[in-house]
């Protein structure tokens, strides 16, 4: 298990056809991320970062190539299998938080556990502990509209962690936040990574990218650079594949 990487992507292709024009959102992407990795994907707008994240998260399907995550071949999963994969293997954090506005912070965090079939009492307990963990112990019964952007994103992170995922995916998690709040979120990510959660984030900000251990740069649907961040040279072993 530990020998195999957590993410193994080979020749991933995604092509959109817009009228006569073909848009190669992904034009052959190959890389691996080891267990415990912490990497950032950067690149100009339209380079295919979100497309890649969505495919890794099981939300979208590639047009070609192979993708094995945590031992599961995503191409072979049916609807129920994919739902289980999104539920238990992946924790997704969105740029726009995507909390359900009618539910309290606690209920939002409970949501993935509901789909996992966790009993209500345990669900509540775990959601409470997660909110404590992200520093929102005092805001459990607040609704998203009663929380600041940074607080909402922390609720979203707690929700992403609810089913103890192997992989945390975050597409521009700090895109809507100010610098101070961004720092808080990054500290949280660093702590989580230190506890063994593999994290992959997409960002436009170099400061954010440099907080990770490895920077993957994309352009026109391809990986054009893939380098470890100097301070963390020793950590990601699979960095140079």
């Amino acid at each position, binding site marked *: 298990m530990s020998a195999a990487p957590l993410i193994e992507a080979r020749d991933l292709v995604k092509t959109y056809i817009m009228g006569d024009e073909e848009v190669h959102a992904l034009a052959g992407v190959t890389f691996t991320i080891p267990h415990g990795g912490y990497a950032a994907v950067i690149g100009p707008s339209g380079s295919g970062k979100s497309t890649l994240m*969505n495919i890794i998260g099981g939300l979208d399907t590639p047009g070609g190539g192979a993708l094995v995550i945590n031992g599961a071949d995503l191409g072979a999963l049916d609807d129920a299998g994919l739902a289980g994969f999104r539920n238990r293997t992946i924790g997704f954090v969105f740029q726009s938080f995507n909390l359900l506005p009618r539910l309290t912070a606690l209920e939002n965090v409970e949501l993935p556990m509901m789909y996992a*079939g966790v009993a209500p009492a345990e669900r509540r307990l775990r959601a409470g502990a997660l909110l404590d963990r992200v520093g929102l112990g005092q805001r459990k019964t607040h609704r998203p509209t009663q929380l600041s952007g940074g607080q909402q994103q922390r609720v979203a992170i707690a929700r992403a962690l609810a*089913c103890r995922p192997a992989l945390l995916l975050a597409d521009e998690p700090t895109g809507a936040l100010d610098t101070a709040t961004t720092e808080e979120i990054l500290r949280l990510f660093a702590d989580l990574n230190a506890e063994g959660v593999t994290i992959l984030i997409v960002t436009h900000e170099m400061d954010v990218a440099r907080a990770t251990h490895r920077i993957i740069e994309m352009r026109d649907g391809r990986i054009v650079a893939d380098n470890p961040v100097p301070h963390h040279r020793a950590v990601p072993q699979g960095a140079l594949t």
Partner: protein
Amino acid sequence: MMTPRDLFATAARALRINPLRSALTALGVIIGVASVVAMVALGQGAQKQIQASISSLGSNLLIIVPGSANQGGVRGAPGSFNSLTLADAEAIEREVAGVAAVAPSQRGSAQIVAQGANWNTRIEGVTPSYLAARDWGVASGRFFDDRETRQARKVAVIGATVARELFPNSDPVGERVRISGGAYEIIGVLDAKGQSGFGQDQDDIVLAPLQTVKRRVSGRQGRANTVSQISVKAESEDILAQVQEDAATLLRQRHRIGEGDTDDFTVQNLSSIAETMQQTTQVFTGLLAGIAAVSLLVGGIGIMNIMLVSVTERTREIGLRKALGARKADILRQFGLEAIVLSLAGGFVGLIVGALAAWGITSAMGLPLTVGLMSAAVALVFSAFVGVAFGSFPAWRAAQLDPIEALRRE
């Protein structure tokens, strides 16, 4: 995989978000179920009423009247007005097997005057066997006997309505009244019977000896033997048809009616009349319930409409739920259950509204109320079915949504 409990809580929460919209959507089903329940109750009430009033006329009863039914009533052949005689009645009693009572009667109408009050009513000249034939009894006083009948005594037994109208505060028994100019003594008051199935007040009647009425009221002294009606009571329901057949055969012989000729009399079997009326009301009830069911259908379409709107509005929520691990089946169940809860709640409220409406209508029309367990169960099952039928398509649409597309939607 959501547990049923979570599913139900999620559906209930979604419906509470917009209570007015949920209530208006359910209103379609409420109206549909309420009208089905009310119509069925009304129909059943009418049927019960018919049954009750037919049996109040007398059970196992045949009524023979002059004239042929085929000719459209008594107007037919000249002379058929007078085709039934006392001798016919006696012959039936003597020769037809299985007869419990035979009662010839002569009908007329008269004005009764008592102590300044007067009242127009039906007067019936009868023999003592009339009470047995019609399952009737005397509430106070007594009935006249055979001797008084033979002697054409001027005595009368009055119905409950007549007693109430003429003697509101006193006992009529022993009082004297004037009927068509003659002075009569009231010797008894009949049991109250209520309305007949034909809408007639059966208690608005005066009974007097047959010969008395013939001579003094209906003015047919010339043909003293004719009667306007013969009531025949069979010993049991099983032999009613046989008695009807035998009585008709006997009368045909006595009236010398050849094969193929038209009868100058008609034997009415009350239970067969009742059956016809039952069938008519049944068809009518079915028709009304059918129309009501159409409104239930319209209610179902309302649910489908709102659920489709709701799926569109909540596209992002659906995308998010899928991203968090909801399977197609979870989404399908969530939205399907919303539709079912909506229509079941509508069905439940509709049942109560319908029962209240049925109660109001039946008590206004004087019908017995029957909202059976059966129609309650049918209403609820039917509304659940409406929820499933009209909620599946929107729920299916929701389940099919692509998570990425859904999340991108604003």
